Every structure is written in C-alpha cells, then in structure tokens.
C-alpha cells in the first residue's frame, strides 16, 4: 500500500470546512484514489469550531477513527489559532496551511513551536478578486492540493473544471471565476520551508 495522506481541517460551522474536505475527496476520487471525507460534529452551531478529515490512499482504508497525527492541517479561519490546538499531532515532515494575509514567518510564532512547513494563503483576497464575495473553500482546496501534491496539478484542474461545469450548469458565469481561484491559489500559496 502506498503512503496514505491524512488531512485535518479546522473551520467554523457554516464556513464550509466540511464541504472543502468533500471537494478534496472528490478531486482525489477522480484521480483514482480511495478517499474518506468525514466531519466531527459537536453541538451544531453556526460559528463554533468544527473539524473535518480526509484520508487519501491507493487502497481502501478500513480505519474509521478520527485522525490524530495528520500529514497536513488546513486552517480555514485564522481566528481559531490560539483557541484550538491546530498543530496537535501534526507531522513535522508535513505542513500547516493557514488562510491569512500574514506571511508564513509571521504565523509561525503563533504555532506553539511547530517545526514543519508553514504555508499561508490569502483566500479572502483571492475569492473576492475572482468571485466578488468571500468563499474560502475553493482557494483552500487548491492550496492543500498544491502543498501536498496528493493530486497532480493538471489532472486536478481539468477534473475540477468538469465538476464546476456540471455543478454550475445553470450559472456558467461563475465557472471561470472558480477556476481562476484554483489556479491563482495554487500559484500564490506561500511557504517558509
């Protein structure tokens, strides 16, 4: 069995971290992988911290526990840093990807001495620039694909294009904006490692 990639998402209820984890599963599935995408629910409240997970592997994974030692952590809402232990168990040869306008060097001191790679992406700016509104999911999805390499870039972009054309069949004008979000996020994600 090839290496399994495990991803943990931190967001707030209503922001779409669960949806982003489902989109990542979709992208990996379309690339021929076995996938798991699952949320961890507490009380269902808009704005409360929520966690979602992905496992991506070449063979079906029978493990159905939560993920405690992820390869990658994605922080969809930077205000969670400090109140949620976002780097808990995160592997040092992995990376954390934070949605923020700050640089990786400025984020690192907030991460309790995490020694692995720190990446940042300004999902708000990219989303507003291309879609005219704040939808962090699409740029965060592209950032985690770029950083982890769990799906090959061109395959990812062409699969997502097909998926958007299907999903937004009645709103074709938003397809190009979403695709630009993906491409620009893949190019603009910054890392200090």
């Amino acid at each position, binding site marked *: 069995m090839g290496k399994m990639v495990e991803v943990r998402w931190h967001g707030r209820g209503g922001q779409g971290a669960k949806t982003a984890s489902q989109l990542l599963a979709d992208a990996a599935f379309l690339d021929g992988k076995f996938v798991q995408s699952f949320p961890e*629910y507490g009380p269902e409240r808009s704005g409360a911290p929520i966690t979602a997970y992905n496992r991506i592997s070449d063979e079906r994974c029978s493990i159905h526990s939560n993920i405690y030692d992820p390869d990658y952590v994605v922080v969809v809402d930077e205000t969670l840093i400090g109140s949620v232990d976002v780097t808990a168990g995160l592997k040092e040869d992995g990376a954390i990807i934070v949605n923020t306008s700050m640089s990786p060097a400025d984020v690192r001191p907030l991460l309790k001495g995490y020694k692995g790679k720190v990446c940042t992406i300004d999902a708000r700016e990219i989303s507003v620039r291309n879609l005219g509104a704040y939808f962090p999911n699409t740029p965060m999805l592209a950032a985690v694909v770029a950083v982890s390499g769990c799906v090959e870039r061109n395959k990812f972009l062409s699969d997502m294009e097909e998926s958007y054309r299907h999903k937004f069949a009645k709103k074709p004008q938003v397809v190009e904006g979403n695709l630009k979000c993906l491409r620009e996020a893949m190019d603009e994600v910054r890392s200090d490692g």
Partner: protein
Amino acid sequence: MSIRDRLSGNEAIATAMRQINPDVFAMFPITPSTEIPQYFAQYVADGKVDTEFICVESEHSSMSACMGAEAAGCRAVTATSSAGLSFMNEVLYVAASSRLPIVLAVSCRALTGPININHDYSDSMAERDSGFIQLYGENNQEVYDNYLMAHRIAEHPDVRLPLMVCEDGFITSHAIENIEIEEDDKVKAFVGEYKPENYLLKEENPLAVGPYGVSNYYMEAHVAQAHAMMNAKKVILEVAADFEKTFGRKYGFFEEYRMEDAEIAMVIMGSSAGTAKAAVDELRESGVKAGLIKLRVFRPFPGEEIAQALKNCKAVAVMDKSEGFSACGGPLYAETCGACFNLETRPKMVDIVFGLGGRDFTVEAAKSVYDRLGKIAAGGEIGDIYTHMGQREK
C-alpha cells in the same frame, strides 16, 4: 458493470431506495438520518421515483403510516435515529407481530441523556426484542448492499418480518467513501416486485390486521413469529448467496477476519470492526494470532455459528457499543456468552463497553484489547469480566 462512485452512507441508502422505488416513504426527520428523506425528496421532485412521499408529524406516525401501507399490500420504507426510533417503539412491535415487512433505515445514534447526536447502538439495541430483523454494516458499501438484500429477506413468505438496516451515525452516515453502485435495472431485477399473498383490501380474501389476541390465541401468534425469525436465518443466507452470484460481494451472518488459527479474538460490530482489522493486521505481522468476528446479523442472532467460530479461541473480548445497564455486561456480550455456554470447551470471555455517544475508537485502543486478551490466553487472570473503555477516570 457496477458504477464506481463516492457517497456517504446516507446517500448510499437513499440511492438504494431510489433504485428500488418503494410504493410509500413515510418520513419524519431526525439527525443523523435526516439526509435520507432529504435526498429522497429530491428524487421525488425530479420524477426519478413514483413513491408516495408522506411527511408525517412524528416517528410514531411514520411507522404507523408504513404499517397501513404494508397492510394494504404496498412496499413501505422509512428512516430514523435515536429518540425517533424510541418513539416508534410501540409501533415496531405491532408491525412485527402483524408480520408487515417494512424496511427501516437506522442511522444509529446514542439515546439521551445527556443529549448527544453521535454514534452508538443504544437506539437499535433497545429495539432488539421488537421482532425486527437487524442488519449492520461496516461502511457505506455494506450498508448499501444490506439495503439491496433487505426487502427480499423481509418479504420472503417464510419470514414476513420488518427489518432494520443499521449504519453508524455520522461515522458511516456522513462519511464519503468509495462505493460500487449497481445498475438500476439490475437492482430492480434482484429485488423484484412485491406481491404479498394477502393484504387488507384483497377482493377475494379481505384481511383483518391487528385484531385483539385473546389468551387462547396470543401465544400461537408469538410462536409463529418466533419461527419466522428462525426461518430468517435460512433466507438471509439464500439471499446473500444470490447477491454474491449477481453482484460478486460475499455476505454471511458475520465476517470472520483472520480467524483460521486465531487464539484471541474480538466480537464487534459496524465501523469499529474496520478500525480493529487494522490492529489485527499489525499484530499478525508480529506473530500474534489475533482475529475478529464482525457481526452483520444481530437479529436473528446466529448463536450456533458464532459458537463454532469462537470455540478454538483461548480468549475473546465482546465489544458492546451500548451500555444496557444490566450491571453485568452489554447485550452483545449476553448473547455471545449464551451462545457459547454449551460448547465442550469455550474461550474465556470478557465484555468491553466502548464508544458511547461518539467516543472515538482507535487502532491503538483495539491493540490494547488484544494485549489484554493475550495475557488472559497465556494463563493470566481474567480480571473484571465487564469493563468500560476510553472514558476519563475523573
């Protein structure tokens, strides 16, 4: 050709329902089963099914509506969880004793209190004496496959009992994983049309359903119902054999995972079995003779078969994902011990209550269970036979 897809457990069940196109779906929502009627409502709106979709005012009513529909000769389904299943309790017994083969999808969730939306089997285990057949699945694929087999088992003339297709709330119901979906026409051909021998308004032989059973008749009705549950064992295996021939995936009463020469074993259900399999694989690599029995059919309980599967083990842990408050072990332990009691030689057997209200069960936790079993098998003290796992001490 089966279709490779990725679906949550809830969407897999809704997909099976769409393919089967039941006559009636009486729905009332409750987390985490709500998506099942939600997806199905879309199929109704899109004209993909011609099911009579009835939005009722409670679970007591949804099961009652299913009863009415089945009594009239229709194929009727619903879905629920937790308190919703409890609220059906009275009607479940009536449906079973009226011999109405309703298929009920249950996204298993803890019962209150404290109030909790996450997974354990306290809801479905509380209905173990209701007369429903109960099938459990490890993942979305097994839940889908169980659903495709459900109507044929329930409606078989030797059975005629309602059936619960149980999935783990959130862990399976809300997890998206790869799945092989079968083609609509092949599913329809496999499940077949429902042609009940008798029903309420059959012109040549009108039927009374649910009459008073005086003492002179009540016991005969119950013995007939008990025999139907015993007959279900044969039918479950027949349907599974045809399923394997048609779709290629094999099912029995339970899955024996690396049990050939196992000295220590777990008896476990649902998604936790998948996690425990990873522990078995690791232990086998270091030479530990560990195995696992994943129970698929809890009602009827395959006691003789489980006893045969466990008889050569030295130590067994029965993993109960519901408490039961008997003060001497959970329901799966009681059944498994009872099944093994008359064996000439039998393993030492402990009960571990775990995973209540969504408490996570990890590969490490499973390994710690095998570690304890290894010590018992080597001649160590059995210790407390009934313990809890994964809770904080203070």
